[in-house]
């Protein structure tokens, strides 16, 4: 068996989908786990969520939009806090968009038009292995035939494998993204900075990059977690968004965040169309409220507000800050996941579900917002339902109606 047309990460996901599966629903009482029927697991899950004063519903990086909307309906019904994994990855990017706006484009636009490609705090050689060939410097498009027609710029705190391929590389001091972006912005706004260096880079080099950016025909800035999760967070992204916005006075320039989990973009999209907000939504007042820092999963956990959690298609015990993960282990959790993960291992109820895109259909949104239908290739193991179906069944028990 083999996988074609996928990158190394995709290939391993497809070929490894059946490793480490959660074999059956599990209920854990006092550290003792026992396999149970799906009905019993759903009953117990519903009980946990119904009894909670302020449950959290969290996850959604790796499931379908259809499952996400089912979860939102449940979350609204029980007055929960609903959050998705962007709270710990590109949440700051979204907050920055709310302040500045965003000049962006689909990946095909980059492929056809871009003659200058900047990766900032992003190492696609590892994180998005096919990105550079399909949409980046090596891509072949209508107006650009390949690497020779494009310039590649990398800005990072270390010489990454991506940086080794760059025509122009700025190795900045860690934590100085905001300063370097602002210096660039000052340059393109024709403001002289009377300093020798910014972020450990001589000002002449920054000006050189400014010239490259202003002089291209179509530029794009891809940014990764190097920008969102280093000191400054959404302010860093704001500086990048503002720089790209202002570059449009000189040429055409766009910015695209390099997203991680395959449908975190879909989670943001569905959260936004149903609740108005992309993540961190509190339903406890009967309508959506959003105030990052207050209505976000990590913060609510840290303050000890959540007294139960429903986790879907995510592994927060591995990914959350340690303090929050510790708090999560103190409250009853219901976890839906195809695999055994650190989170399912501590769950009070763990329910195995089908792999979206391998064992179940559904829609995912690509990182540039292009929706794609995921196909079902093989049947899930007997008795295993999709996230969407399990959520609807829990919803029916909890809310007493068919959601």
């Amino acid at each position, binding site marked *: 068996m083999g996988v074609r047309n996928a990158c190394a990460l995709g290939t391993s996901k497809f070929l490894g989908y059946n490793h480490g599966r959660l074999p059956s629903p599990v209920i854990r009482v006092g550290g003792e786990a026992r396999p149970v029927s799906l009905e019993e697991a759903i009953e117990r899950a519903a009980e946990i969520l119904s009894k909670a004063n302020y449950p959290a519903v969290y996850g959604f990086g790796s499931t379908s*939009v259809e499952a996400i*909307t089912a979860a939102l*309906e449940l979350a*609204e*019904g029980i007055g929960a806090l609903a959050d998705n994994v962007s709270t710990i990855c590109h949440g700051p990017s*979204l907050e920055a*968009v*709310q*302040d*500045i*706006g*965003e*000049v*962006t*484009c*689909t*990946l*095909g*636009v980059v*492929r*056809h*038009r871009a003659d200058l490609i900047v990766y900032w705090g992003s190492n696609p050689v590892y994180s998005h292995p096919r990105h550079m060939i*399909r*949409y980046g410097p090596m891509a072949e498009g*209508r*107006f650009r035939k390949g690497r020779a027609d494009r310039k590649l710029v990398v800005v990072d705190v270390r010489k990454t494998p991506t940086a080794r391929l760059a025509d122009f590389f700025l190795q900045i001091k860690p934590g100085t993204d905001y300063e370097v972006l602002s210096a660039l912005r000052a340059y393109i706004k024709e403001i002289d900075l009377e300093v020798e260096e910014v972020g450990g880079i001589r000002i002449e080099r920054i000006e050189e990059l400014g010239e490259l950016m202003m002089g291209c*025909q*179509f530029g794009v800035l891809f940014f990764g977690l190097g920008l969102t999760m280093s000191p400054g967070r959404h302010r860093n992204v704001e500086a990048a968004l503002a720089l790209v*916005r202002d570059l*449009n006075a000189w*040429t*055409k320039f*766009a910015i695209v965040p390099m997203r991680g989990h395959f449908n975190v973009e879909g989670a*943001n*999209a*569905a959260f*936004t*169309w*149903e*609740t*108005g*907000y*992309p993540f961190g939504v509190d*339903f406890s*007042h*009967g*309508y*959506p409220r*959003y105030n990052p820092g207050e209505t976000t999963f990590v913060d609510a956990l840290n303050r000890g507000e959540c007294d139960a959690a429903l986790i879907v298609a995510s592994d927060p015990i591995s990914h959350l800050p340690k303090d929050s993960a510790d708090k999560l282990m103190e409250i009853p959790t219901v976890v839906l996941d195809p695999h055994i993960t650190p989170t399912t291992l501590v769950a009070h109820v763990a329910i195995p579900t089908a792999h979206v895109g391998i064992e179940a259909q559904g*829609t995912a*949104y690509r990182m540039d*917002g*292009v*929706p*794609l*239908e995921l196909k079902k290739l093989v049947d899930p193991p007997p008795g295993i339902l999709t996230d969407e179906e399990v959520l609807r069944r829990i919803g029916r028990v909890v809310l007493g109606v068919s959601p």
Partner: protein
Amino acid sequence: MEGKAVLIKNGYVYDPLNNIHGDRMDIAIKDGMIVEDVRESEALIIDARDMLVVPGGVDIHSHIAGSKVNLGRLMRPEDHRRDYEPRAPGKRSGVGHTVPSTFATGYRYARMGYTTVFEPASPPLKQRHTHHELNEIPILDKACFPLVGDNWFVLDYLSRGDVEGCAAYIAWLLEATKGYALKIVNPGGIEAWGWGRNVASLDDQVPYFRITPREILRGLCRVNRLLRLPHTIHVHANGIGMPGNYRLVIETMEAVRDLEGCHGKPIIHITHCQFNSYGGESWLTLTSEAETVAKYVNRNSYVTIDLGQPIFADATTMTADGPFQYSLHLLTGAKWANADVEAETSAGIVPIRFRKRNRTNAIQWAIGLELALLIKDPWRVYLTTDHPNAGPFTAYPRVIAWLMSRRAREATMKGLHPMAMKRCILPSLDREYDFSEMVIITRAGTAKALGLKEKGHLGIGAHGDVAIYPLNPKSLDPSKDYKALRKGLRRTAYTIKGGIIVARDGTITAQPIGRTYWVKAPVRKELSQTVLKDVRARFRDYYTIQFENYALDDRHLALSAPIIVNPEV
């Protein structure tokens, strides 16, 4: 409740399509359709005595769903905080003032007596997203218009002069994206925006494509005729929002005049025409040219328009017209989003607030109303605020009050920038719409323009979509008591959708799933095969997704309602 017959008794019925103008009569609904009569014993009786009974509203142009709308939602949390819909039994929650979330959109339209709303700008590549949202808008029947004016396949076919090939491609595209009508936005200008540029006239060359805006317009107008689509081409003209652009909009209409043929039916719809009726050379010298545009529309029955009426309040401008949105950002300094879509289109979003004491805004307000008052045939001018561009759709009752009451206009004029009305003729216009005309510009005319035979009227066989307003058209003088009119139009006593009471005195009582209309245009088999082969061959060159992943199946629609047409090709 479904299936139960409904009898609406003793209301004052306005159904201009069937020549009923305020007659006291009963309306019967059975199985979701208007019928001759139903047995009272089997029907739910609604006492509509002293109330206004009209067909459910039909909005021809309102941005309610899709990637651009959602980006507008995402970037405006400040818009949502002060306007929310709480959850209630059988009702979902939501937020949003100018860009409401999906559920809130459905409820607010239903409360206002609207039952059909068309989303007018959807990038085909992201049409799946648009349908996700449309599926989650409760109650309303809806449809969306794919953006085709700068689509590379369209440009390729038309620049080769292959109109039939283009028609076959469009037929495939409508079915693949479950779209309804052809939306053309700033033709040629959007492709130029791919390079940060724009076009300035109908005869500018589109960069790297051997075609001009005029050729795109004419080509797609021909395609529309060849396919016999239910609606005309739906055009957001070049030069929108620029002083002096009225010449360009007249030129745009004029560009297709000879394609009218012998039908005598409209062949072009100019949308949110207010934004295209500006005189003067700059913002400083801006004047209203609504009269010139209205005169042209009056003389030429092949044209229909909608208003894009500004409201003095917050708005969120969002169009596929990337270069215009950028210029608006430069003008206002407000936050700006732009989203280009490969091989197809772009989108831009800028929040704005229309202010009474801003001269430009005051003139824009007057232009919209002048168009409505100067165009004589109400069947060819429709009420829109180009939601949420010139204001949210929830402001329709205010616009209707301005149209039905000179006093209402005068009351608003009092607070305007002192110079503004000197550049407009609005203060001199006496015309006041009557109830029939109001019904035409909000439902009967729009349904006709969209080719929806079962909408916009209450004749036998029409859909059982009825709005009952707590207004007595016999005793209320809208000219004098415009405030009561406004209040009455804001909340129906009953909104009935397909025979189901969906709203009662502002409370949502049911949320049936609405239809999604789309057009199936079966063209000649050989033609469609040749064109599809060609499209398939070039698809990988143009897109970053596979041909097989582009089309969406009608099982993705909550309630699929195809309209099958009979193309000439």
